[in-house]
């Protein structure tokens, strides 16, 4: 068994490396137009355990406009045009609960990939996943350091996670059957690596401002795609 597994892994890397030669990166920026809304402060008095973990104010992550006028936490992925099968990486995606907030707030993962949910707080969190396509689950993690492993078996954009104990806590996950997704960072940039050349529909998803899409042709040198939110 072991040798067969090793063989598979070798073949997998072989294919990956040939892809890498011919693939380019899809990069871009999500700009924000108009006046940036003020950050919304989260009141954590409802659970004194949470309030004690923060010294300054905590802000909601649903709309974060970066200093350079770009929008953070936009999920970008290839919606149409991806060919071939991509097996899930063995490394898990980690969703941490720290200071009664989810980290990261927006993330992506592949079908079949392990999602490791970790509680770093000395209070109860329950991870209530509310997918439409996949099987919902609701798991309690009463203690600090508890871990739960889950995975999804169907692609779905986005799966919402909620903590029923702390109603301000939410996270969204894009579950895809390929690895071509990214989330815009604190500079508004995203970078989808190693996209095989071809024409794709790229979709962006934002929690408050919804979805946009764009046709993009990726060559071996890569491509660029810029988006503007809210939709002009």
């Amino acid at each position, binding site marked *: 068994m072991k040798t067969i597994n090793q063989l598979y892994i070798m073949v997998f890397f072989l294919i990956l490396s040939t892809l890498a030669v011919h693939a380019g990166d899809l990069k871009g920026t999500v700009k924000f137009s108009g006046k940036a809304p003020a950050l919304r402060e989260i009141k954590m008095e409802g659970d004194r355990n949470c309030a004690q973990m923060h010294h300054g104010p905590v802000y909601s992550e649903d709309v974060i406009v970066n200093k350079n006028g770009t929008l953070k936490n936009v999920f970008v992925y290839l919606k149409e045009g991806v060919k071939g099968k991509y097996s899930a990486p063995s490394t898990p995606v980690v969703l941490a609960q720290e200071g009664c907030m989810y980290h990261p707030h927006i993330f992506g993962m592949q079908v079949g990939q392990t999602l490791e949910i970790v509680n770093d707080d000395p209070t*109860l969190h329950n991870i*209530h996943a*509310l997918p439409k396509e996949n*099987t919902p*689950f*609701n*798991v*309690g*993690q*009463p*203690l600090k350091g*508890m*871990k*739960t*492993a889950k995975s999804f078996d169907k692609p779905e954009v986005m799966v919402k996670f*909620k903590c*029923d104990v702390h*109603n301000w806590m939410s996270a969204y996950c894009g579950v895809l059957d390929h690895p071509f997704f990214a989330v815009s960072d604190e500079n508004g940039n995203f970078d989808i690596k190693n996209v095989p050349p071809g024409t794709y529909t790229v979709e962006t998803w934002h929690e408050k401002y919804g979805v946009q899409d764009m046709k993009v042709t990726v060559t071996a040198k890569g491509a660029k795609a810029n988006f503007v939110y809210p939709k002009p």
Partner: protein
Amino acid sequence: MENHETQISKPKSRLIFLSTDHKTIGILYGFTGLLFLLLGFSIMMLMRWQLAFPGQPIPFIGSWFGQDRAPGGIMLPEFYNQLGAMHGTIMVFLGVVPIVVGAFGNYLVPLQIGAPDMAFPKLNLMSYWLYVLGGLCALSSFFMPGGAAQSGWTSYPPLADIATTGQTFWLIAIIFLALSSMLNSINIITTIVQLRAKGMTFMRLPFFVWAQFITGFLLLLAFPALEAASVLQLMDRLAGTSFFLPSGLVVSGQPLSVSGGGSPLLWQHLFWFLAHPEVYVLILPAMGIVAEILANNTRKPLWGYRSMVYATIFLGFMSFIVWAHHMFLTGMGTIISGFFQATTMIISIPSVVILLALLISLWGGSIRFTTPMLFALAFLPMFGIGGLTGLPLGLTISDIPLHDTYYVIGHFHYIVAPGTVFAIFGGIYYWFPKLTGRKMNDVLGRIHFAGSLVFMNGVFFPMFILGLAGVSRRLWDGGAQYQFAQHVLHWHEFMSISAWLLAVFQIPFIVNLFWSIRKGKKVRENYWDATTLEWAASSPPPHGNFFPLPEVYRSPYEYSVPGYAEDFLPQNQFFGEGLKIKEKG
């Protein structure tokens, strides 16, 4: 179990599980019920670990439960809730009721009234198998995605409506159990009415039979309410109806897409319409067992037999109109709550009458402290505590601070655990010679008794302290995060250790039970010098019980009759005109 006439040509293994003999079915009920009792108790011991040491891994066996239930051996809150719901369900529906009605009722009622069998033997077998089916259904729910039912044994909607698949299995199990109970109670009532031996008038029935008679009616008429409720909840869960779901619900931030227009309180009414009579289903047969043991071991007639019978009938009737005292805090007005408080106070009177009659029966007796008698005697004060602590719960105003706290748990466990379960133990020790022709070991029996008495109180008495301090029930951490609970939390450890020691003291019982079946001391047929008819049959009684059927001449408890040499005069003994005994009132 041995019967030459009908069983001679059939293989034995098939016989036991398909036998229509009421005694075999009774024994099957008994063993199955005891197994469930043990399972329910084990579940409770697990929960007690979590309560005593919240969030610490369960030692030794923690890894058995898997990542979904107890990662690293630490019990998850949802698993705790599953255990809580299943502990209640198993103990009430699968443990105690099948033992007191299915086992004791089935085995003893035909014998005590001098009948060859139950009125409908095939139906009897069917009700046993429906019970097993219901039990398996309930247990299988543990292996469903999301685990077993976790909305409490009361399954209040909307929580139960939106719960995981295990709840559906719970409901199906309840429907099976309701059918089983219905068939069983039809059988018991018909048997008592129709198959009484010649001369066995209603006022000559042993008190145990009376208790079974009333219990039969309670099961017959109360269970359908839960059955109906279960059908409605199943519809809610499977067909998307909203019998128990009002409009405008938002669950976990998502509006619930149902038609709405239902009422969560409807379930509570239907449920408690069953569940209050169910309490008397648990306790009446236990009182019957205790009455039999007391009369025999005091060597005198029960005091106030008639008043006990009337009290039981009254109790049975009243138990149908007190149910809403479980729902005082659902927003009840003065008039309705006043009515249910009044009925609750009224129903306490017949309970007091029965308890006092049993106590007074001791006066003037020649008391033999046999093992069954010890359990029967302990039943009296334990049931007393359980009954008395019902008083503040039955008054709305004192129910406010105590409602849904550990006080409630203490209250009903005193009635069921050191109450009914003690009666069950006493009954097993008392009738074991009839079942096997052998007696159980007394030394082991006494060890079992002493340990059980001490540690039952160790488990349940501190619950009153926690309850008065205001600690809610069904908390995963036993209230550890609340300020007002801090000064009583140490009792959790005390209760848990008591529970585990209580388990240790059940070992002598289990050993005794199995050892005595084969190796117990052989004893004569009427080992206790008792008067009721079951002791007139051989031990164990053959299929058909009596050859010929007995004839009854007097009341059930004619002990120490003046002018008669022996201190007991069996119901079926004929002594001519000269010794005709005046019926005792």
